[in-house]
């Protein structure tokens, strides 16, 4: 069972790796410049020169998908990483110190969780006048909460472990115990959560871009590409299908990888 699970993790991990490599090396792989318009190749169907066809301005859709992946994936990873850091730090403070700090921070978290994440994100992104930075702030406002709650509950449970009592009796300081025992033992569940958050964040960022609250054109980004091309979907469906398909594929791959890693950790007991 665990062996099969390991194989599935390796295959899904390889798929995620291929996606990441493709966007990292977009400059090498992309057949055309993603921003060069071509009046002679407007809405051209997929062909040898333009494997995914062209859009309304004659730009290569494949090249834009690859470069757009850079924007989407880089922003997603950066946002997940920041949320991971902020949430873990806040969760560890709550779980270790308890008292009024814990009560205050967890009530703030409860308030943020009581609103649908996307509604808050749209409102905040609207106030911030859109742009990728605004979209990231808008999603980041609520994203740290899941990490904080997870880090808090695991910190509280780790604190009850006998090895923490042993470390205290060995004279280790609170900071030393947090750094050497609590934080490293939190990493596995938080990393799993981070993997599952990749898909959600990607949906959020692409969603905001689709609504015109994310990246500002002509920057290539999957959500904004879908938004731009939906106006002429009946004439050039490839311009919508290509970025939509890679968005779905990437989300599925990272969500599935997160689920598999979680399952693997559960079988470890």
């Amino acid at each position: 069972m665990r062996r099969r699970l390991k194989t599935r993790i390796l295959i899904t991990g390889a798929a995620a790796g291929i996606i990441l490599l493709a966007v990292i090396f977009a400059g090498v792989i992309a057949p055309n410049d993603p921003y060069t318009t071509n009046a002679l190749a407007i809405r051209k169907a997929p062909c040898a020169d333009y494997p995914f066809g062209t859009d309304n301005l004659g730009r290569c859709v494949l090249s834009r998908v690859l470069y757009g992946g850079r924007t989407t994936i880089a922003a997603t990873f950066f946002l997940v990483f920041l949320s991971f850091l902020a949430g873990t730090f806040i969760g560890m403070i709550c779980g270790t110190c308890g008292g009024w700090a814990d009560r205050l921070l967890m009530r703030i978290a409860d308030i943020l969780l009581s609103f649908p994440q996307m509604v808050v994100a749209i409102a905040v992104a609207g106030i911030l006048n859109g742009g990728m930075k605004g979209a990231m702030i808008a999603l980041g406002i609520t994203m740290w909460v899941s990490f904080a709650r997870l880090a808090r509950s695991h910190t509280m449970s780790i604190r009850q472990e006998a090895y923490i009592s042993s470390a205290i009796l060995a004279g280790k300081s609170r900071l030393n115990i947090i750094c050497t025992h609590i934080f490293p033992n939190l990493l596995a569940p938080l990393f799993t959560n981070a993997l599952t958050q990749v898909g959600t964040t990607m949906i959020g960022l692409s969603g905001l871009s689709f609504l015109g609250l994310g990246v500002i054109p002509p920057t290539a980004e999957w959500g904004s590409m879908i938004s731009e091309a939906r106006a002429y979907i009946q004439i050039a469906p490839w311009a919508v299908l290509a970025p939509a398909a890679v968005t779905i594929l990437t989300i599925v791959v990272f969500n599935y990888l997160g689920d598999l890693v979680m399952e693997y950790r559960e079988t470890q007991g």
Partner: protein
Amino acid sequence: MNPVRRKKSVLRAEHLSKRFTDGKRYTDALSDVSLSLGEGEFLGVVGESGSGKSTLLRAISGLVSIDAGEILCGTERMTGRGPREMGHKLQMIFQDAKSSFDPRFSMERSIRESGRGEWDPAQVRSLIDLAGLDPGLLSRKPTALSGGQCQRMAIVRALYSGAGILLCDEITSALDVSSQAQIVAILRKLKAQRGLSVLFVSHDIALVRVVCDRVLVMKEGHVVEEGLIADVVDDPQDPYTRELIASARRQSL
């Protein structure tokens, strides 16, 4: 005159009280508990679940704060000093040995962490020999060791810390019979060779009889009987102690 009682006291707890509150409800885990542990003495603490045995150890070690009472190590007043300072004087061995080691650390790293001075491999080696363990186990993580091996490593770690008092909290209850026998053999060796003082919590009165000099019987946070182990087992004065011994005899049958 009791010959064991004449020994110099290394640990005294006087009139300890601890109340746990949960909203309006409360539990008196310890009520006016006093004990004295002599140098080189093994003092057993028996009682059924919820009698306050583990709380007593955690209160003495400073892991749980006390509401009232005094703790003295020799003549030094230790009340309110906290577990980090208490760790110089005493170490605790827990019921679940595996969970008393960080799952990410090798045994060597865990033992190294418990020491307060320079790393002394020769001393660790001699302790490993005393515990009858294979030195190769030092490089392994707790998940790669059996419960009995982990518990013996926990004893090694406690001894390596240099503390003169061990607080053993049900250290054999999670082990199989052969591992229990190994632990008992190590404790006897420690008694004979090192003159260590041990507060030995167990619900197994038969085991306490084998290992300890004196025994303290606890019920609902109170000490109901105290005395030499042979006296208490052969002629229990308190009805609860009689019940406990009768129940232990029934189980052994």
